[in-house]
């Protein structure tokens, strides 16, 4: 829309709804204060000044799921914790995102074989958007995860893409035929 820009008085901005909403959501991902195990120590480091997650607008750690956009599952999820985790996820308002931080959360990690009490990947309990591997991940890795989540949010669309919709219908029809 460059032909129309700067042709009106100051203060008038031309943009699309998608761009404006995605820009707002990208810069204000509020994570939930939800550290379950040692990965939470790295998450705290990310919140502190050396790594400073506030640079990405994701530093407002909320103590309530009702004010959070992002659940960073930072640590080993036990079967006992899984029901609480699911309840917290259900209490979050949409749009909501889940980041699986650390090897245990991604897929059981060091407890995959000999951990009788560990959920073998938090994606068995709640849907996961971003996986951050590491045991625990470096703070830079967590920041990378935040940036990838921002990429994901940046490309969200309000309206359905007609081509995507057509592809989806064709795929569903093909699956029904099978």
């Amino acid at each position, binding site marked *: 829309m460059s032909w129309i820009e700067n042709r009106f008085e100051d203060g008038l901005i031309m943009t699309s709804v998608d761009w404006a909403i995605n820009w707002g959501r990208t810069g204000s991902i509020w994570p939930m204060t939800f550290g379950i195990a040692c990965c939470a120590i790295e998450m705290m480091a990310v919140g502190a000044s050396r790594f400073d997650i506030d640079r990405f607008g994701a530093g407002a750690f909320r103590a309530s799921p009702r004010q959070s956009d992002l659940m960073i599952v930072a640590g080993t999820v036990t*079967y*006992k914790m899984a*029901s609480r985790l699911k309840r917290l996820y259900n209490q979050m308002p949409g749009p909501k995102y889940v980041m699986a931080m650390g090897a245990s959360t991604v897929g059981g990690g060091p407890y995959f074989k000999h951990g*009788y*009490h560990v959920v*073998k990947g938090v994606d068995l309990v709640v849907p996961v958007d971003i996986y951050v591997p590491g045991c625990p991940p470096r703070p830079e890795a967590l920041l990378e995860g935040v940036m990838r989540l921002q990429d994901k949010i940046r490309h969200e669309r309000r309206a359905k893409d007609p081509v995507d919709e057509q592809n989806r219908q064709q795929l569903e029809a093909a699956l029904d035929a099978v």
Partner: protein
Amino acid sequence: MMSPEEICNLLKQQFPDSIITAGLDANRPYVTVAADHWLQVARFLRDDDRLRMGFLRCISAIDLLADDKLACVYDLMSVPPVSATQVMTVPHLIAVRVETDRNAPRIPSVASVWPAADWHEREAYDMMGIVFDDHPDLRRILCPDDWEGYPLRKDYAFPVEYHGIPGTTEHELMNPRH
């Protein structure tokens, strides 16, 4: 400070029928006490003026699968009295081992003697399934209340699923989704 031999001789003199064996040259010297008389021996260890074993440092449960037994090791220490004339004294140290049948494990609770035993015995019950008679509140302490089996026993079978969350890769083989 009394040596482990002196403590063992004192106990043998006091309870000739209760002391089964002693491992005094072990890394952690111990005496084995019959489970039926354990409570009386514990009271004596705590209250006798020569011993004053006021500090139960730890309870370790052992699964002796080959002998078809379960054992508890009580790690005891006397806290020496602090006075102006006596700057430092070395505490008495002894471990007490109580063995019980693996199929119907019962050991009298010493939570009335050392309050620290309360949660330790609950943990031993949770992980090994040892039932402590006359315990004030014998419930699982770490696992959920509806957990099946005792996880730290050597013949423990891992749960295939827990409340719909698959626990092992075998779950997928037994319940194929496609």
